[in-house]
């Protein structure tokens, strides 16, 4: 476990180094959610300020985190392949899963940039007031959202290790979560037959928890607590799946010898 934490910390540090070496990277990673959020700014122009804050501002943060976690993780893996470093890290005693975890987390947090941008625009130009009635509940829900996105990134790590064309899937995967997690609208607007997709996505619940946390007394609100619980539960399930898939993937790669292909 000590070694795992060391690997995790190293991956975090290394991803930060990588960001520092290419300062424009966060910007390019999140430009699409930023533009999508701007569209939402226009579509929400007549909405009450609170609705605006809960959907456009928070939603932009969620989209940014997801785009960045997804794009960052797939790009990191592509880079490892192109540079041939994956061949070396694969045969270190470090767990690929913990490396991916460190990476995912940094990428997801970087995505909060979109939230900052949209919040700034909203406050400066649109005069939107952001008030949070239960800061603790809010913070908890936000942290869980980051975790939820990071864990999905982790879950996809084995997929990125297997495929040579991860970037081709990026657009589909990013939009999948935009549609189904209810980032910019409540999932109740989705048709019934599409809603099951939403239910199995952890961020659906954590985002709902964030929205509930702006009401006073959220920590005692059973609805809030249920959403937090569901987020945790699904995150655990993803973690287990990620761990299982990683093992299968590594075994497969040692047979197929595909890891070195660019």
């Amino acid at each position, binding site marked *: 476990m000590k070694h795992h934490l060391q690997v995790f910390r190293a991956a975090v540090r290394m991803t930060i180094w990588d960001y520092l070496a290419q300062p424009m990277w966060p910007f390019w990673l999140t430009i699409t959610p930023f533009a999508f959020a701007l569209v939402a700014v226009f579509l929400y122009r007549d909405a009450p300020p609170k609705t605006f804050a809960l959907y456009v501002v928070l939603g932009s943060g969620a989209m940014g985190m997801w785009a960045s976690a997804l794009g960052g993780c797939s790009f990191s893996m592509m880079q490892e392949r192109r540079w041939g470093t994956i061949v*070396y890290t694969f*045969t*270190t*005693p*470090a767990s690929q899963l913990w490396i991916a975890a460190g990476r995912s987390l940094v990428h997801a947090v970087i995505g909060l940039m979109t939230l900052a941008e949209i919040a700034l625009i909203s406050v400066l130009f649109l005069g939107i007031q952001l008030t949070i009635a239960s800061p603790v509940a809010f913070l908890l829900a936000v942290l869980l959202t980051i975790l939820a996105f990071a864990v999905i990134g982790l879950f996809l790590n084995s997929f990125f290790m297997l495929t040579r064309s991860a970037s081709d899937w990026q657009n589909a995967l990013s939009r999948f979560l935009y549609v189904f997690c209810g980032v910019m609208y409540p999932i109740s607007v989705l048709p019934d037959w599409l809603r099951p997709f939403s239910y199995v996505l952890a961020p659906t619940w954590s985002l709902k928890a964030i929205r509930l946390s702006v009401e006073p007394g959220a920590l005692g609100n059973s609805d809030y607590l249920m959403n937090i619980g569901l987020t945790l539960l699904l995150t655990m399930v993803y973690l287990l799946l990620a761990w299982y898939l990683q093992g299968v993937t590594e075994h497969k790669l040692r047979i197929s010898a595909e890891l070195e292909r660019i």
Partner: protein
Amino acid sequence: MNVVQVQELTRIYTTTQGFLKQKKRDILAVDGVSFEVNQGELFGMLGPNGAGKTTTIKILTTLLLPTAGRALVMGHDISRESQAVRRQINVIYGGERGLYRRLTGQQNLLYTADLYGVEPPIAQKRVAELLELVGLDKRADERVENYSRGMAQRLHIARGLINDPSVIFMDEPTIGLDPEAAHFIRQRIKWLTGQGKTVFLTTHDLWEADQLCDRIAILKKGKIIALDTPRELRRLVGDVQVVEVETFGMPEEKRAGLEAALKTSFVSVATYGPKQTIAIQTQNPNEVTAQVQQLLKGVKVLNIRVREQSLEDVYLRLVQEDKS
């Protein structure tokens, strides 16, 4: 103690080609290889392109699984106890790939140290030492993308030693380096065995192998065709000497005639522009010299001499002998 134990190791690559009609093709890269490497030994593996050297290294370093057979490294099974193996080994593939190009040399080493679970205070110290060992201490804070090829390869040596491994696998570590850089790396390899490390080395540089290795395995089409000390390998092909003839503009039919007439000896011809160097391995150099002079009448002979056979002669003979 046997640091590496390999029994009947076999590896088949299956490749698929095409999309609509998928064609499967099996490539037998390593074919039932068995050998052992002892503690503190510098073990070399030679062989033509595609013989299976890199594949062997990839299996022993747990990057790939064998299709059949068994291998133990430091007493641990490479298939079932990969983690235990990984902790005690490291690998260096030739070339500059495998480094984080946007990070500095030092950052690369620190990151790798963490992946190997080296305690941070020890890692700090070791990184500084290793950078000095490979002569990169002055440029440790530069990004790897600005390194020359030789510098990148030197950084790889440092990276490969970061976990203080008991066994180090090196796949053509001096490939594409200028003589000075190659010399530098060879020195460091030699130094390693002085530290009690076991080194598994592949190379195409026979002189390098001759200089460095305690024992050499020659691999051909996935099979070991010879395994011994450089000295014994030379003896393996008999107590022979080499008659070396340098000619200018030798016609093709003369060459064929030469090979036919000297059937009992091993003849290899290397062409450099209009010049040819003919090397004839034989037990009776004097007789052959006379014979050659006779046969090459009318051809411009620049030089003719008798020398001891080198590892290269032995290698060529072993690898080419049964052209089956």
